[in-house]
């Protein structure tokens, strides 16, 4: 590992001032330190933002939440208001990593974790994301767990976060402090598709510091479901974050996002549109799922994800419909 300077930020302003060329923010380090050890990241300076006073979860009177960027993944999942008001968010966090990783990991770090594409993590291999212009060996190589939608000839990676999928379904917003001041953007505009710039996972600019995540109230049953290659402690093959409000056999409102399918958490807007006002039957759920998956372009070895995620959508919505009807 290349030697680096370490500095602990004492305030948001201090963090921004310390963040200059070659500097990288440090959260819990569970992804960054791993990638530094692999030689994938080689920062000259770490600016530690895990000790900033962004460690609170605020429940506002309207039922919305403001989650500090430095809240640990564990504290987020254990929080009573999150478990009661936004259960799919707690479930998504608990579905990720292990107890000891979640204790170290922060909310901002979770959002900004890098892809688990095996070539990205192997500094001896070409990879457009790590080394722009060097090629994408995953497209013809090992890609069984990479993207089926929204990929480009340059990159077929997936975003690995579980938490971000639930936040996408919830329509969360990301509070960012940048060199030009504070702004808040929808999570849908944080992560991006690879297009011809796969080296950019997000729309963040250099120095941008995430300070909080705002989550609107939900008010309907929700569920996060994840399919993986072993019973626990593995990244998703596919996952679904869903919330469903049914009334008299008809879907009144729905939220749906998919994980493991694209370079960003995939909000299934088309399925949501097809479902509002639809009958709550297995067939209508299936039809609505297929509207979204119609744009899927699976690679040689990951076509299995299309029926897998379709079935997961139908199963999760069916479960929520039964719960809502009872």
């Amino acid at each position, binding site marked *: *590992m*290349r*030697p*680096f*300077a*370490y500095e*602990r930020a004492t305030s948001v302003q201090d963090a921004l001032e310390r963040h200059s060329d070659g500097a990288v923010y*440090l959260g*819990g*380090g*569970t992804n960054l*330190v*791993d990638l*530094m*050890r692999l030689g994938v990241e080689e920062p000259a300076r*770490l600016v*530690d933002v*895990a000790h900033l006073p962004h460690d609170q979860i605020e429940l506002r009177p309207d039922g919305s939440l403001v989650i500090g960027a430095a809240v640990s993944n*564990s504290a987020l*999942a*254990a929080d009573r208001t999150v*478990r*009661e008001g936004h*259960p799919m968010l*707690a*479930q998504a966090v*608990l*579905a990720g*990593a*292990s*107890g*000891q*990783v979640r*204790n*170290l990991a922060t909310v901002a770090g979770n959002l900004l974790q890098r892809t688990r594409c095996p070539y990205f993590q192997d500094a001896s291999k070409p990879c457009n994301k790590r080394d722009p212009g060097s090629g994408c060996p995953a497209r013809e190589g090992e890609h069984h767990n990479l993207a089926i939608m929204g990929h480009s000839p340059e990159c077929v990676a997936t975003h690995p976060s579980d938490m971000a999928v639930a936040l996408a379904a919830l329509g969360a917003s990301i509070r960012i402090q940048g060199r030009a001041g504070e702004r808040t953007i929808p999570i849908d505009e944080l992560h991006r598709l690879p297009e011809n710039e796969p080296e950019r996972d997000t729309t963040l600019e250099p120095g941008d510091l995430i300070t909080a995540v705002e989550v609107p109230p939900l008010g309907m049953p929700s569920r996060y479901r994840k399919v993986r290659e072993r*019973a*626990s*402690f593995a990244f998703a093959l596919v996952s679904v974050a869903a919330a469903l409000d049914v009334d008299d056999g008809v879907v009144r409102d729905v939220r749906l996002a998919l994980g493991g399918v694209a370079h960003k958490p995939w909000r299934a807007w088309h399925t949501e549109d097809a479902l509002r006002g639809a009958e709550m039957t297995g067939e209508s759920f299936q039809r609505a799922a297929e509207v979204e998956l119609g744009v899927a372009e699976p690679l040689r070895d990951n076509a299995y994800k299309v029926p897998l995620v379709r079935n997961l959508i139908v199963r999760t919505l069916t479960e929520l419909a039964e719960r809502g009807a009872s």
Partner: protein
Amino acid sequence: MDMPIYAEITLVVNGTGHRLSVDTRASLLDVLREDLGLTGSKKGCDHGQCGACTVLLDGRRANGCLALAVAHDGAEVVTVEGLAKDGRLSPLQEAFIEHDAFQCGYCTPGQLCSATGMLDEAEQGWPSAVTGDLGADTVLDDEEIRERMSGNLCRCGAYAGIVAAVRQAAQRREAAGT
């Protein structure tokens, strides 16, 4: 070659304070093992994937291999060497012996620290991925124990004994009302 960069930190390890000069690149695991000679904590993967390096960091279980020592200046750390009190093994350690919860023993320090932290988490009502009702109290059945201990791998496959030992420690703790 770039020159290493050092930083002064303090750590309280198993109740004893230490002032150390550490390479900024050093993990907490390396500092415990190399600088403090506490070789109970093990390095299995160095990537957060096996749990052999698990220690209690400010009271919570954490992977020593992913924690930069310099980022935890001032922290309180408990390692497997600090689980026994006044020469007496902890109830969890005793349960591991009673239930043959290890073979080679390489994963055991991490299993012990992880289970110690996990029992506290459960006592504080933290849910897990297999907790059906997120609002309900935590009941540590075998499924819950397996899920909560899934960050600790055992190459010898001593899982049956580990689950039994953790279950016993959990039950005794509950009976003692502590």
